[in-house]
């Protein structure tokens, strides 16, 4: 019998990896809970406010995107637009080729993963180096991130030490500090040689055109300190009304993502270098990427566009903890990914229509979400859409016979009584493969079908 893909992946997952993902995620949830509880008496009120801020922003995207564009231009940045992932990749390489740039350094950006930017740049002969430690390890391994904030949550120090040895970054050494120092030395040269730095953006303030970037390693700062060109890839939904909203959003982002009040570096970029302030990149380009976002805005799942990519819903999710990020077969894993990935797939929705089913609908994702996205509701809407579009549904047992049985009172009565025969059948010997794993640790109570009906009947008589 066909199985649900996420479940199948979880079952085949290496136990060590599963353990690592589980404990690291659980620790993340714990830290978030502690810091929010220590700092706020009513953190849920703050989450709801942040949710309203983001909902307001996406429902006025027509106004704010235009305002952001004007503000960015006023500050001297070039503003570009890209409808599809391919357009976005081409926009980046066009800017680089026009400037004769051959080498770029990149700080972590989910949207660049989404559009597969590194593959594209490689194909046009531009060297692109990921500078976030985790993302760099993903890059040299030809792997994919398995968590939004902790991309190598699925790797251990021995895996990383082997990769570094293979890449010529010194002899095998699996001490995390040594690994980090070697990356520091290696990246130094990359930053200094790079012609351009590519970043994402956590927020863009429409009023001031400020682009906000948060990191802990300081790599985005380096990408904007050494190279002469800065290219920022920004999903159109990242725009917020003004700087004032950041007081709420920044306070929730760090705490939700890593349990920090603020990440180590919170950077506000407001245009390229000026004659009296010549230190940064001379050119700044902002590429606003749609890639299905406007279609999501038109759908009944638009709340997912509130997401600020903190990863809290991944950490808390019982399915993510068991299955790890790669089970979701897409750039965004976990509960947010189960909603976002099928939507971002556009015409290929059906290929990922199984993801919204990889959830017990326990609601923990909604409870931790810093922008209060009703993820379980959105999962249900997408399950419904999958059903309506006849998406394949592996793992769902055929319900046709049951539907017939349950809709005929006579058949139902008969089945209730006749199923008593079940008490005589040794269930563990039945040739039903999907029942066997369940029966290994559980037994069924004795079948007592029909007794309630008889009781009701007798009671009425009395």
């Amino acid at each position, binding site marked *: 019998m066909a199985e649900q893909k996420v479940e199948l992946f979880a079952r085949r997952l290496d136990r060590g990896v599963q353990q690592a993902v589980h404990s690291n995620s659980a620790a993340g949830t714990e830290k978030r809970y502690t810091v929010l509880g220590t700092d706020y008496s009513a953190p849920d009120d703050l989450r709801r406010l942040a949710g309203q801020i983001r909902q307001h922003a996406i429902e006025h995207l027509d106004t704010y995107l235009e305002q952001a564009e004007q503000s960015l231009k006023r500050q001297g940045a070039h503003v570009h637009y890209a409808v599809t992932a391919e357009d976005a990749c081409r926009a980046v390489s066009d800017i680089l080729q026009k400037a004769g740039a051959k080498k770029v350094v990149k700080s972590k950006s989910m949207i660049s993963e989404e559009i597969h930017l590194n593959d594209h740049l490689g194909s046009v002969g531009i060297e692109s180096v990921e500078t976030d430690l985790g993302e760099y390890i993903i890059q040299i391994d030809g792997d994919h991130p398995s968590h939004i904030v902790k991309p190598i949550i699925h790797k251990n120090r021995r895996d990383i030490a082997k990769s570094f040895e293979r890449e010529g970054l010194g002899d095998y050494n699996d001490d995390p500090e040594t690994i*980090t120092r070697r990356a520091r030395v290696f990246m130094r040269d990359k930053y200094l040689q790079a012609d351009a730095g590519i970043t994402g953006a956590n927020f863009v303030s429409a009023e001031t055109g400020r682009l906000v970037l948060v990191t802990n390693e300081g790599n985005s700062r380096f990408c904007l300190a050494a190279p002469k060109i800065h290219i920022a890839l920004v999903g159109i939904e990242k725009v917020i009304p003004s700087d004032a909203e950041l*007081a709420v959003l920044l306070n929730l982002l760090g705490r939700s993502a890593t349990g920090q009040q603020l990440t180590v570096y919170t950077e506000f970029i407001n245009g390229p270098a000026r004659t009296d302030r010549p230190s940064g990149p001379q050119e700044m380009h902002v590429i606003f990427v749609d890639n299905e976002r406007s279609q999501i805005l038109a759908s009944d799942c638009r709340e997912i566009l509130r997401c600020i990519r903190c990863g809290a819903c991944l950490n808390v999710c019982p399915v993510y903890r068991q299955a790890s990020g790669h089970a979701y077969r897409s750039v965004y894993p976990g509960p947010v990914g189960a909603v976002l990935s099928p939507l971002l797939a556009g015409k290929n929705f059906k290929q990922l229509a199984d993801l919204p089913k990889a959830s017990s609908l326990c609601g923990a994702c909604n409870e931790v979400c810093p922008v209060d996205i009703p993820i379980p509701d959105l999962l249900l809407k997408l399950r419904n859409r999958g059903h309506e579009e006849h998406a394949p549904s592996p793992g769902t047992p055929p319900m046709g016979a049951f539907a017939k049985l349950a809709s005929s009172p006579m058949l139902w009565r008969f089945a209730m009584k006749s199923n008593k025969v079940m008490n005589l059948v040794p269930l563990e010997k039945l040739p039903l493969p999907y029942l066997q794993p369940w029966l290994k640790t559980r037994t069924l109570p004795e079948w007592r079908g029909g007794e309630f009906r008889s009781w009701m009947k007798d009671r009425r008589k009395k």
Partner: protein
Amino acid sequence: MSTAREQIFSSVRAALAPLPERTARPVFSKDVAEPHWLAAEADSLALFQKRAEATGTKCFTDMESCAAWLRSQGVRTVYIPAPLTRLAALCSEFSEVTSEYTRARVNEIDAAFTPAAGAIAESGSIILSDESTPDRLAALAPWHHIALVSRAEIHRTIADALAAMPDDPNLIWVTGPSKTADVEGILIQGVHGPGAQACLIL
């Protein structure tokens, strides 16, 4: 053929047009996201020091103890930009004190002093701007970075700092040394930026 810009704006407008009503912009007070313990902290300077130390930023209030700390860390080469030359006089015991910062020397400077544009007490953050930082690399590449914070420029809260952001191509809030927990969740300091972050409050 319409441009990408027109296409995106027309899809966004088309997506929003059928909404019967749109969520209003929430009104909130500036202090809405302040931690509840903040009210009990009367002294912004003391709060800044406490929060900075808690996030791993060492605080000094005089140059002598700062210089002593750098020596104990094995620092040999120190960068002190021109506006701070008065401090250089107090750094006589290092093998080199320079006011020149060039790319060729990025890996040779052990410690750099740069003026901060302010600080935030609530989070213990140092604010750097392009106006006050002569070279972004100088405040980032050396293992030791010491920001000069003026008492008068300490904002009490994050919201205060946001409301007072100057017009500058780049502002950065530095809250502790550069760090990562990418490898097995183990915290390591000094990934790309300073492994030792300090501030000298004057």
